[in-house]
C-alpha cells in the first residue's frame, strides 16, 4: 500500500501537516518530559523537511514548486506554491522553531504549571504549523485561515505568562482585539479582491487584476489595497500600528518571546510581500500607488522613535521588543525601495534578525530563569557570573548595530546600497545609519551594566544558565556570526527571491 508514496513530491504539504498531526497528538504525551521530547521530534522533522524543500526549489528548473491539494486544478482548489522566497522563510521559521523548542524545556518547566505541559506544547506546535502554513500557501483565503490559527495560538501562549505577571493577560487580550481587527481588515480586503477578480488563487488574482481595465482607478481595488495594507501593518507590527507588541513580548513566557520575535512578525512581512508583489504587482503597488512613500515614511519614523524608546527602557525584554519594532522597520524600508538590492536586503534581514533577536531573547530568558527578573539592575555584574549568556547577548547586540562580520552588517549593506540606487531615497540610508547608532546606545547600556558594574543582591550568587539553554542560544548567535562572515548562501537566495518578486509573479 505504501509503495506508491514518496516523500519528495509531497514535501510542501508535509511541512504543514506533520506539525498539525504532531501538535494534536501532543495532548496524549503525558505530563513529564514527554510533550517536550515529542515537540522537539516534530519540529526537528519539519526542519529537515524544509531543508529538503529548499534543495528541491534550488534544483527546480522554473524555481517554483506547485502542489495542488486534493488534485483539484489550482484555479479552483487550493495550491501550495514554493519559490526561493518562501522556501527561505520556511527554513527560517522551522529552524528557529526547532532551536527554540530545544531551549524551551527548562524555561517552560519553571514558568508553566507542570500539569498542562501537554496542552502548552500542543498549542506551541500548532503556532509553528500556522506560521508555516501561511508561508507555503498560494491561496488568498487559505492565508486568512492559517493566520487565525497562528493568532489564536499566540494569544494563548502570551497569556501563559500570567503566573509570572498578570499583565500578560491584558497584553494578550489587547493583542487579541487589535489582531482580530487587523485580520478582519485582511478578510475584507480579500473579499473586495475576490469580488473584482472572481478567484482566490494568488497568481490567478494577479492575472485578473492585470487584465482589469483601469485597475488603478477602480475604487474597489483601491480600498482593498488600503485595508490590506492596514491589516498587514497591524499583523507585522509596523509603526505606528505596533501598540500590541511591546507589552506582549515583555510579559509572555521567555521561550514564547523568543519564538514570536523570530517568527510571527516575519511571517506578517512575508504576507505583505505576497500581497504587494505577487497579487497587486510592483507596478500597481509601488508605481501607481504611493505604497513606497507610505511604507518608507512609516518604517523610518518607526526606526527612530522605537530606537529612542528602546534606549530609555530598563527591562531587557521590553528593550528588545522595541528594538524588534525598529528592526522590522529596516525590513519594510528595504522592500519599499522596490529595487533588487533593497528587496534582497529586506529578505536577508528577515533571516538575520530572526537568528539575532531569537538568540537575544533567549539570553534575556536565561537571566529570567536564574533571577526571576531581567531589568538592568539585575544584569549588573552578570558578565562574570553568566559569561556565556552575556556574551551571546552582546554578540547579538553587535549584530543589531550592524557591526562588520555580523549578519546585521550584510543586511545593512544591501539596504544602504538599495537606498542610494533608488531616486530620492537617500534619507532611508541616513535613517539606517542613525538607527545603528541608537542600537549602539541601548546595547551599550547592557554592556555597561554587565561588565563595568558590581553585582548586587541575588546577582552576586547566580551561576551560568543550564547547558540546555546556553546551547540553543549559541546555535542562533553562532548562525548570525557565521552568516555574517560567509553570506554567500543567504545573499544568493535573497537576490534570487528579490529578482523573482520584482519580475512579477513567482
Amino acid at each position, binding site marked *: 500500500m505504501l509503495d506508491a508514496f514518496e516523500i519528495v513530491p509531497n514535501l510542501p504539504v508535509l511541512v504543514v501537516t506533520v506539525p498539525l498531526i504532531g501538535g494534536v497528538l501532543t495532548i496524549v504525551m503525558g505530563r513529564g518530559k514527554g510533550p517536550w521530547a515529542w515537540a522537539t521530534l516534530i519540529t526537528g522533522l519539519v526542519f529537515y523537511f524544509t531543508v529538503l524543500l529548499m534543495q528541491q526549489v534550488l534544483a527546480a528548473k522554473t524555481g517554483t514548486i506547485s502542489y495542488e491539494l486534493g488534485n483539484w486544478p489550482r484555479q479552483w482548489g487550493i495550491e501550495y506554491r514554493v519559490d526561493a522566497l518562501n522556501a527561505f522563510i520556511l527554513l527560517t521559521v522551522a529552524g528557529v522553531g526547532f532551536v527554540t523548542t530545544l531551549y524551551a524545556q527548562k524555561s517552560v518547566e519553571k514558568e508553566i504549571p507542570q500539569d498542562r505541559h501537554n496542552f502548552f506544547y500542543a498549542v506551541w506546535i500548532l503556532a509553528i504549523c500556522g506560521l508555516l502554513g501561511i508561508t507555503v500557501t498560494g491561496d488568498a483565503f487559505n492565508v486568512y485561515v492559517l493566520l*487565525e490559527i497562528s493568532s489564536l495560538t499566540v494569544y494563548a501562549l502570551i497569556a501563559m505568562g*500570567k503566573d509570572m505577571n498578570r499583565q500578560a*493577560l491584558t497584553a494578550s487580550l489587547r493583542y487579541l*482585539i487589535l489582531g*482580530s481587527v487587523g485580520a*478582519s481588515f485582511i478578510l475584507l480586503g480579500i*473579499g473586495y479582491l475576490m469580488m473584482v477578480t472572481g478567484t482566490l488563487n494568488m497568481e490567478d488574482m494577479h492575472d485578473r487584476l492585470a487584465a482589469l481595465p483601469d485597475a488603478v482607478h477602480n475604487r474597489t481595488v483601491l480600498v482593498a489595497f488600503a485595508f490590506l495594507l492596514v491589516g498587514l501593518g497591524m499583523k507585522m507590527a509596523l509603526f505606528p500600528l505596533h*501598540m500590541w507588541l511591546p507589552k506582549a513580548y515583555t510579559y509572555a513566557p521567555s521561550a514564547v518571546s523568543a519564538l514570536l520575535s523570530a517568527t510571527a512578525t516575519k511571517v506578517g512581512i512575508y504576507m505583505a510581500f505576497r500581497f504587494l508583489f505577487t497579487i497587486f504587482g510592483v507596478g500597481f503597488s509601488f508605481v501607481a500607488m504611493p505604497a513606497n512613500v507610505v511604507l518608507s515614511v512609516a518604517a523610518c519614523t518607526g526606526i527612530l522613535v522605537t530606537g529612542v*524608546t528602546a534606549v530609555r527602557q530598563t527591562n531587557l525584554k521590553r528593550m528588545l521588543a522595541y528594538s524588534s519594532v525598529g528592526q522590522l522597520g529596516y525590513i519594510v524600508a528595504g522592500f519599499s525601495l522596490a529595487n533588487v538590492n533593497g528587496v534582497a536586503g529586506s529578505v536577508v534581514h528577515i533571516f538575520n534578525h530572526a537568528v539575532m533577536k531569537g538568540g537575544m531573547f533567549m539570553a534575556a530568558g536565561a537571566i529570567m530563569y536564574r533571577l526571576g527578573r531581567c531589568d538592568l539592575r539585575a544584569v549588573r555584574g552578570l558578565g562574570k557570573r553568566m559569561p556565556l549568556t552575556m556574551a551571546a547577548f552582546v554578540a547579538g547586540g553587535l549584530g543589531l548595530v550592524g557591526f562588520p562580520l555580523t549578519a546585521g552588517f550584510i543586511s545593512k549593506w544591501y539596504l544602504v546600497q538599495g537606498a542610494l540606487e533608488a531616486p530620492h531615497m537617500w534619507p532611508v540610508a541616513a535613517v539606517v545609519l542613525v538607527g545603528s547608532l541608537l542600537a549602539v546606545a541601548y546595547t551599550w547600556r547592557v554592556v555597561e551594566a554587565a561588565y563595568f558594574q558590581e553585582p548586587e543582591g541575588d546577582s552576586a550568587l547566580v551561576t551560568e544558565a543550564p547547558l540546555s539553554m546556553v546551547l540553543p542560544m549559541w546555535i542562533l548567535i553562532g548562525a548570525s556570526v557565521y552568516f555574517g562572515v560567509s553570506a554567500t548562501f543567504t545573499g544568493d537566495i535573497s537576490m534570487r527571491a528579490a529578482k523573482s518578486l520584482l519580475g512579477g509573479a513567482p
Partner: protein
Amino acid sequence: MTGALGIYNYWIYVLLMMIGLYGVIAKPNLIKQAIALGLFQTGIFLYYISMAVVDGGTAPVWTTILDGAQKYEGPYDNPLPHVLILTAIVVSVSVLAVALALIINIKRAYGTIEYDEIEAMDQADKRADYQRGQVTDAADDVEHRQEGHHHA
C-alpha cells in the same frame, strides 16, 4: 437592481461593522469589547453573503439530483462566499471563546473588567515597584500614557 438599492446591502454591512468598531474603541468594559468585536465580524459576513446573491437565484442545492422529475433551470446563488463565511463564523466563535477565557482570568487577577481601572492598577503596580527600587522604569510611564491615550 439599480440605483441606490443596488448597493444597500453593502452600506448596511459598513454600518454594522462601524457600530462594532465603535464599541471596540469606545467601551471600556472588556465583555462589551468582545461582543462588539463579534458585531464587527458579522458585518463582514453580511458583505460576503450579499456578494453571493444572484437575481432570481435560489439556494445552491441541485434539486434535480434529489428529484429527477423536477426541472429547475437556474440560476443558483454563488456557493463560494457561503463556504468562506462558514469558516469565518467558526473562527469568530473560537476567538470569542478565547477572549472570554482571558476576561475571566483578568477578573480573577485584577478584580475588575473595566479597562481604565485595569490600566490604573498597572500604573499603581509600577509606582510601587519604583518606590521599592526594583525597576527604574521612567520610560515605561511615558509609553503607557501614550498607549492609554490610544485605547481610552
